[in-house]
């Protein structure tokens, strides 16, 4: 795999996002909503709140934090292949000596970096706000090490899953909007599973967080391979095989 080609793809993708009003709008608006909602929820929790009340509030925050890496990357990733097909740029690219893997990794990296960066930045803002503004009972739960670890580990892994699914769908459909909607939808079942930890239905612990992260990583690797196989230049160029 050529690093130069992957870097070329990443640089081009990021330049395109920066000039795409829809991508910029979505990337700016959605995290803002996901930031305001949990803060309002968390600051309402009184010091006298019961354990279940605190867990529900914190669970909502954690879940919202995990929704960000699930819903943001598909906005970019789902456009990556079908968007190029629509604007007629895919064929010239495929006539260059770029490998499918280099193209896909470049596109995935270009979606991964801003999404995960944004998700971490918002989580950091939430953590800091909770630390200085929320009731002590809330701080204790939010700043619980396994909880933070799970959040930090799951964020990039969920984003990667979302990206691979987005790109995979993008190679098979013929409309950008369908790809974006399906990719978002595909991330939700996995999110449902991780929310069991967010709401402490399954008690979070360091081994559990690491174990689940490893399982997610395995899922991501498999997803990457599947997407690589789905990427069929002949089908993409001619629309048939």
């Amino acid at each position, binding site marked *: 795999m*050529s690093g*130069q*080609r992957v870097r*070329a*793809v990443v*640089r*081009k993708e990021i*330049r395109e996002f920066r*000039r*795409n*009003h*829809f991508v910029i709008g*979505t990337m700016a608006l*959605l995290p803002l909503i996901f930031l305001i909602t949990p803060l309002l929820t968390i600051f309402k929790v009184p010091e006298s709140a019961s354990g279940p009340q605190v*867990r*529900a509030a914190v*669970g*909502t925050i954690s*879940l*919202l934090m995990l*929704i960000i890496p699930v*819903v943001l990357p*598909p*906005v970019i990733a*789902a456009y990556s292949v079908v*968007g190029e097909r*629509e*604007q007629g*740029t895919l*064929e*010239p*690219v495929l*006539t*260059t*000596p770029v490998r499918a893997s280099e193209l896909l990794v470049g596109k995935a990296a270009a979606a991964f970096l801003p999404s995960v960066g944004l998700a971490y930045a918002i989580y950091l803002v939430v953590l800091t706000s909770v630390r200085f503004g929320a009731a002590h009972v809330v701080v204790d739960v939010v700043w619980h090490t396994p909880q933070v670890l799970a959040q930090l580990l799951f964020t990039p892994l969920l984003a990667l899953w979302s990206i691979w699914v987005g790109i995979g769908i993008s190679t*098979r*459909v*013929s*409309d*950008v*909007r*369908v790809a*974006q*909607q*399906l990719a*978002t*939808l595909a991330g*939700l*079942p996995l*999110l*449902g*599973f991780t*929310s*069991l930890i967010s*709401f402490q*239905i399954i008690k979070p612990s360091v081994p559990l967080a690491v174990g689940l992260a490893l399982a997610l990583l395995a899922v991501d690797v498999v997803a990457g391979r599947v997407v690589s196989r789905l990427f069929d230049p*002949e089908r993409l*160029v001619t*629309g*048939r095989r």
Partner: protein
Amino acid sequence: MRSQRWFQRRRVGLGWRPASWQGWLITLLTVGALISVLALLRGSSARVPIAIVVFAAYAMVALASGGARPAEVTPAATEPSDGDEGLGGADQRKALRTLGSRSPEGTGLVVEHLTKRFGERMAVDDLSFRVAPGEVFGFLGPNGAGKTTTVRMLATLISPTSGSAVVAGVQLVPENGLEIRQQIAVMPENPGLYLRLTVAENLEYFAGLYGITDPKERILQALEAVNLAGRADDLCGNLSKGLRQRVGLARTLLNDPAIVFLDEPTSGLDPVASREVHELIDGLRDRGVTVFLTTHRLEEAERLCDRVAILNTSLRTVGRPSELRDRLFAKALVVRTAAPLSDPDRVFAVPGVESWRTDDTARYVLSVSDARSAAPQVTRALVAAGADLLSLAEDRHSLEDVYLELVDQDDEAHR
């Protein structure tokens, strides 16, 4: 066959609806997974907020993405914009030379029995031809004749059903795809530019894909070759169609290709812009680049191409335009006189004239074995007969006549 669509977008409301059984399956599985999660949460106070958050998140993205546009494409201006300079034949050839010249050794094309079938439909049938290194080769044929499919096969985008080819000295097999693509450049009919990127950014991306180590210098040279160095920082979306075509041509120069495939490079261009593209193709020929030109414009093929092939799923003919004319049409002289000749049989009884015919308007068409040797003798015979000669000319058939003759033959055969 058409591409699979699992979902269709609703005209009104949220997002999409299933369009096939796969779409329904995905929908059912997703709904099932969500219900399962909610069932697991039964008894938990988190159930309601989770359900609300999940569905709200989906609805938000569905609404947002439903309003998405594929790309904000500025329609190509039909009029040249400010600073839309012509290529300038001499300057442009000089600029092309700065890109270096190629040794024409072993850089041509050899195609043998190449066939492509899409399901039941035969797209290209048993195609065989050779293109010499440094040759400009025209590839003509009606819509759906298989021209683009052939180019895509040779560019390793699609695999042939059978047959073989050697592209720029490399055998056309899947494992050689990268090596072949390193040696060729393809410009499809739609130049395929990223409209939100500038001209230089577009070329920089492709230079990166070609693994060019010093892209800036190369990009500048390529832009100078198409006389666009002054427009490097313009967004491609703001360029006229002619300028976009030129950017596409500059892209084909980046990797110093042995073979350039040009698919309808002058489609939609005005005559001035077309002439500029022709000059660029001449410049490529001067550099020893093999040019594979797909076109509908027969006068363009006649003007530019050393040889042409006419395709209609299978190869109908291949050769120099003059050879094709000779092959299809008998050589003839057309004689016009002021008044009908009194005894044409006697006048045209000269060596080299095989037969004659007239349409009774003092216009005679003479079948000859060699027009150049027969013409002086016919002239002398007419003068000797006291005829008032208005004109005498070789009956020239254009490449268009050849093309139409062959396509008509195919149409009649299919009836």
